[in-house]
């Protein structure tokens, strides 16, 4: 995973991983487990009920100062549950970290981080409607992209099927098209 020429292209985006580890460690003061290094960012895994406290610590700590929530998304791991992924950035210190929360399929709930970063408002609404994850304490938990009435289909889950093509080209014109 660490071929020389590829890293050169991205050196400025990676930053120094050891520095970021120590900064994040100091900020989190023991919260969080399972640190690993992804290709570009340091990845920290945090438990479900500690996420708000950890977010506040990451934002308010002077060395860490992660004040910019870049992206909030989720990944459906099918049988293994789901993970919610936060990408954070510091506008003053210019470093990045990725925070993950692992959820099991039985309890798809975690507290909202909208009080810490208001940017999470719409991002959590989208994750909630696409994956069925409930964010407790969210100020406005309506559907964002889906119609408001629908609350039982979650399109981005892996078991949600693709639509069948309803009209085959050339149907009824004497051409027996193949099933696509």
């Amino acid at each position: 995973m660490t071929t020389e020429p590829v890293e050169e292209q991205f050196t400025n985006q990676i930053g120094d991983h050891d520095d970021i580890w120590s900064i994040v460690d100091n900020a989190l003061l023991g919260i969080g487990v399972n640190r690993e290094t992804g290709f570009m960012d340091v990845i920290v895994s945090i438990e479900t009920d500690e996420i708000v406290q950890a977010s506040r610590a990451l934002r308010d700590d002077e060395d860490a100062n992660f004040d910019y929530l870049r992206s909030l998304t989720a990944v459906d791991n099918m049988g293994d549950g789901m993970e919610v992924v936060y990408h954070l950035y510091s506008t003053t210190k210019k470093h990045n970290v990725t925070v993950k929360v692992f959820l099991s399929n039985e309890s798809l709930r975690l507290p909202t981080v909208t009080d810490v970063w208001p940017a999470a408002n719409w991002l959590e609404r989208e994750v909630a409607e696409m994956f069925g994850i409930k964010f407790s304490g969210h100020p406005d938990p309506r559907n964002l992209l889906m119609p408001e009435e629908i609350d039982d289909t979650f399109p981005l889950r892996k078991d949600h099927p693709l639509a069948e093509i309803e009209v085959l080209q050339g149907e009824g014109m004497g051409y027996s098209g193949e099933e696509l």
Partner: protein
Amino acid sequence: MEERGFTMAITPADPAAVPTESPVIAPEIIPVLPALPTEHPSEAPLLIPAQYVPGKALYKQILPGIIQAPLDLLLGASRKSSLWPMTFGLACCAIEMIATYMAHYDLDRFGIVPWPSPRQSDVMIVAGTVTKKMAPSVKLLYEQMPGPKWVISMGACATNGGPYTRYDRVLQGVDKIVPVDVYVPGCPPRPEALIDSFIALQELIMEERKVQGK
């Protein structure tokens, strides 16, 4: 002339030979009607009785600016020459639609003026993907348009869902909710393709001109 810096293209050989007033040609009068009475003698040359040529309608000789044609031809010609599309760009095809309205591929020369309100437009160009969330609005806008009205389905997404057809929030073709007259393939169709679709729509209007309204 030379002091002004330009010369005449044709110089007359003899200035005296240039006629200063146009010659007066007296019309040949075949008196059919008696000479019309006038109040002022100077009007007399103006009141020339009409020359009646048998086989040709009299009104065409008196008032030569009149056209006589079947009514459906005139209505069809006027409808096709002044199609006002409702600006209904949904997605990427809207950009190519706007490019067709603009100066490079001008649609105004066909009489096509984009009009925002559905109440005064003739054509609805469905440009882009229709999602199931947007479908009721499309149907409502179609019903708000007064007849005669036509629909052009622009792009692959409006035809049958396009590249997004396998996603269940996408309506697989706008012809599931409104009747479509012209389909334009492409993703997005070039402006020339959209102009071609308008010409096809004009031919369609002339072919179907005997059908009363829609």
